[in-house]
């Protein structure tokens, strides 16, 4: 294992100390993994808290700041944070107007956030939760744990964060978050696996001419192994899976072409060209787009496409100012 780390057991705390040093706009507790915007708690503002396993950077701590998250809670690599830490993040940012938990749909995240919400309510803090489950590679049925939360999380955090910043009450912020989550669909492809530092070996092995279709963001293999193919065909397969699930014809859409961590921006733009063309060919109008590594899976090579069927009001919230380490928007 060749990694730019000091010791496998220190990767999360070492990275958080780096974030603290690089971004004075954040208050970072490297020991507990809790990252809070420096001006929290904001009196009377609904606070957004998200979190999950580490290894998806910049998600979630990179999205802490005005217009997005008030706090993020980082667990071990690919491991949900524990309830006491989520509670600490929740208490640190509650400004009296309640807290929205943005939770990606994984069994561990859902269980730990649910326990944390109960603890917060014991402390007199009103908590609402939105569970993001946007990955169409997983059947949403009683035969699975449900769809995974992936790239759609970014849209939920940005748009609901803007609603909260504008002064919306908790019920409305939660409704906006649920609305956005319901409008997002994602599909991911891996060209190479990743290595969890504590494990030391790749999460799966691929031959030189193979790819994985339908991956998540935890280094897990996908639904199907397939032969490598040109970017245009990979993107077309992803768009077809998304469009089959939530048709895009006649819709205004926000698009994220997301690098998984080990894929160069050059290739992400090659994919975006195919995505823009493919969406236009399917009758969608791309109103806003984002290209880059935003929701990653360590050094996995590959990409994920997320499409959000937007509305005028939601696009307005997408355009609203945000000032976080990893995403800035709007004139301030």
């Amino acid at each position, binding site marked *: 294992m060749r990694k730019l780390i000091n010791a496998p057991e220190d990767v999360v705390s070492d990275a958080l100390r780096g974030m603290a040093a690089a971004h004075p706009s954040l208050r970072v507790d490297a020991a507990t993994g809790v990252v809070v915007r420096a001006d929290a708690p904001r009196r009377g503002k609904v606070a957004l808290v998200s979190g999950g*396993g580490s290894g998806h950077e910049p998600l979630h701590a990179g999205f802490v700041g005005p217009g997005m998250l008030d706090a993020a809670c980082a*667990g*071990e*690599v*690919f*491991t*949900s*944070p*524990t*309830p*006491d830490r989520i509670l600490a993040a929740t208490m640190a940012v509650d400004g009296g107007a309640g807290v929205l938990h943005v939770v990606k749909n*994984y*069994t*561990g995240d859902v*269980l*730990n956030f649910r*326990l944390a919400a109960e603890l917060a309510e014991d402390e007199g803090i009103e908590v609402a939760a939105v569970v993001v489950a946007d990955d169409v*590679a*997983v*059947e949403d049925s*009683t*035969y*699975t*744990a449900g769809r*995974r939360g992936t790239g759609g999380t970014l849209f939920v955090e940005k748009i609901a964060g803007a609603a909260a910043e504008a002064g919306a009450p908790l019920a409305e912020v939660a409704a906006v978050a649920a609305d956005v989550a319901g409008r997002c669909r994602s599909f991911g492809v891996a060209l190479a696996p990743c290595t*969890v530092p*504590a*494990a030391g*070996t790749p*999460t*799966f092995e691929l031959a030189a001419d193979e790819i994985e279709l339908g991956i*998540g963001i*935890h*280094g*897990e*293999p996908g*639904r199907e192994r397939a032969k490598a193919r040109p970017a245009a065909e990979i993107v077309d397969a992803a768009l077809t899976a998304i469009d089959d699930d939530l048709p895009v014809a006649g819709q205004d859409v926000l698009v994220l072409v997301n690098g998984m961590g080990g894929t160069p921006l050059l290739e992400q733009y090659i994919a975006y060209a195919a995505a823009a063309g493919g969406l236009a060919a399917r009758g969608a109008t791309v109103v806003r787009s984002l290209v880059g590594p935003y929701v990653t899976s360590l050094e996995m090579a590959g990409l994920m496409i997320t499409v959000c069927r937007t509305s005028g009001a939601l696009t307005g919230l997408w355009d609203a100012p945000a000032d976080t380490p990893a995403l800035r928007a709007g004139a301030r």
Partner: protein
Amino acid sequence: MTALDVPAWIARAAERIAADADRLTRLDAAIGDGDHGHNLRRGFAAAAAALPGDGPPGRALIAAGRALVAQTGGASGPLYGTALRRAGKALGDAPEADAAGLAAALRAALDGVRELGGAAEGDKTMVDALAPAVAAYTEAVENGATLAAAATAAASAAERGAEATVPLRARKGRASYLGDRSVGHPDPGAASTALLLRALADTAGEEP
């Protein structure tokens, strides 16, 4: 032995999990995200460290369960933590965990895991090891077996249950994302449950 030494069981469980952490993680890498053994090693080390010096065994289980929830993360922390806390609550303030008390405790642990995780037998989860273990233990005790003999029956049932997850298609947890590709691998959660019950049987079988 007529009662289980609960702190000795938790300490032994922590040792077994630590010794097998790499194997559990390899099982998890095949159909999950490759962290099960390492997370449980951290969690059970915390559980063993949280054991009170004395007091009723139910309290020890509750303390261990709380530590698991607080220190493990992932899904296995809340699930195993809830299992131990529910088992501890079932024992209440009884001065010792006798054969009948342990039956109620194991049943409560299974109910807690089912309730929180929503899994049923056959979903390829820890329930596939825990449910047959609880059934085997209960049946043995009802037939007049000693605690040690019943615990051995439970451990063997858990190991068979874990092995029987190999041909199953996962319906809960991260392995469910793989669909048919989860077939042919044992479930790591069922494997760790089997380890915990073998540790219980070995503890119960020791001369007092």
